[in-house]
């Protein structure tokens, strides 16, 4: 895969591919808006993954073809999509029964900040003039079995997104299991943050410099 971003680390496409590789066959998955949506394009050959969109569809298919859009068949980002054969529609209370009730295996979300303990902030900067909007993020992190985050490693201004404590209002506390960034894949364990994989040309020191919390290598301790 060619790195189209012309910078160190993985492209957004490669990040999405990395996430897709970690989703087991037969999983029920909810994808957040933005980069997470790209994950659906990279399911490895031989695996079947069913996508749930919280606005009422289990079995979400590809984006609707131009000219074939149905304004009443949309995903959580309100984009026109399609349903696969075998899909089902349901109302919002049933949708969140799936989510809150622990029936969804994996949720892939974007992030503004993640703490070393897996706290996630992804809905508000807390700025006084910002219009707060939360959508389904708090329900997803509270109910889905495994929460994966996919995000750039640092903000547009170059500040770490992975830090000791989130400074933005939380979406949920101790909810993130794994972080996929352009620089690395990092596990959030009870003993701290552990680097699972480094992107090409990224070494541990380079990664640590861009991270606001202590990172560990799996080789540091027996696991």
């Amino acid at each position, binding site marked *: 895969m060619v790195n189209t971003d012309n910078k160190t680390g993985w492209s957004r496409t490669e990040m999405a591919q990395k996430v897709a590789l970690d989703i087991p066959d037969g999983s029920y998955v909810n994808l957040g808006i933005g980069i997470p949506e790209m994950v659906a394009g990279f399911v490895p050959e031989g695996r079947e993954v069913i996508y749930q969109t919280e606005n009422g*569809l289990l079995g979400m298919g590809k984006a609707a073809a131009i000219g074939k859009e149905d304004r009443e068949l949309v995903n959580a980002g309100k984009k026109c999509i399609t349903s696969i054969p075998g899909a089902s529609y*349901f*109302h919002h*209370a049933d949708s969140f029964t799936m989510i*809150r009730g622990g029936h969804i295996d994996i949720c892939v979300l974007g992030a503004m900040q993640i703490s070393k303990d897996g706290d996630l902030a992804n809905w508000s900067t807390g700025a006084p003039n910002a*219009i707060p909007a939360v959508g389904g993020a708090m329900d997803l992190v509270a109910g889905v079995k495994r929460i994966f985050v996919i995000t750039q490693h640092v903000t547009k201004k170059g500040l770490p997104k992975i830090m000791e404590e989130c400074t933005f209002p939380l979406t*949920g506390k101790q909810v993130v299991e794994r972080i996929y960034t352009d620089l690395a894949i990092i596990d959030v364990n009870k003993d701290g943050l552990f680097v699972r994989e480094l992107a090409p040309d990224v070494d541990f020191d380079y990664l640590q410099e861009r991270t606001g919390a202590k990172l560990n290598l799996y080789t540091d301790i027996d696991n």
Partner: protein
Amino acid sequence: MIDKIIKSATEAVSEIYDGATVMIGGFGEAGSPIELIHALIDQGAKDLTVVSNNTGSGQVGLAALIANKQVKKMICSFPRTANSTVFPELYNAGEIELELVPQGTLAERIRAGGAGIPAFYVPASVNTPLAKGKESRKFNEQEFVLEYGIKADFSLVKCETADKYGNLLYHATARNFGPIMCTAANVTIVQAKKIVDAGEIDPEVVITPGIFVKKVIEIINPADESQLVADELKYPW
């Protein structure tokens, strides 16, 4: 004899009064009962508390109802969308209240309201600003917050097919909040793209049983909200 079919949108919304709590279906434009909302704008009831997932787009539908200063308070999960400017402006000017609720909690509060359940505990929002000031309790070592069911005076819902008893079918993801909002209001008013004779809807596939619906009006060709927004149209026309 039971016949819930109403001839005009004007008549359908005529009894909505000042200060009422009104649930409005839809996830963005999917399922938004735009003709009923426009009739409510013509009707003019004000100081409304509106329960709806979003706050509308452009200057039509829910956004137009808010722009017309008929809404005192919004209870919703996501008050901004692409092309959503009306609510943010009024909110920043302090002219409209907002009760922000996580989407699943909003759905369950509506479901509970309709099911006669006054309150319940959820894990969503624990340790976040949205749990501030709410009662909490631990079950099996895990913390939950107390949330209250919501009942409405009126619900405005859009569906695909209805009959004179108020049995409803929906289309794709336009179903969203419709079925639960139908259950949670004293008076549920539905716009259907098609009204069929009783018996034409297979009882096995009815989504909303007629008992939850008070009035049905047929709107064969509902407006396409995104087209109206793209054309920069503003209601009242």
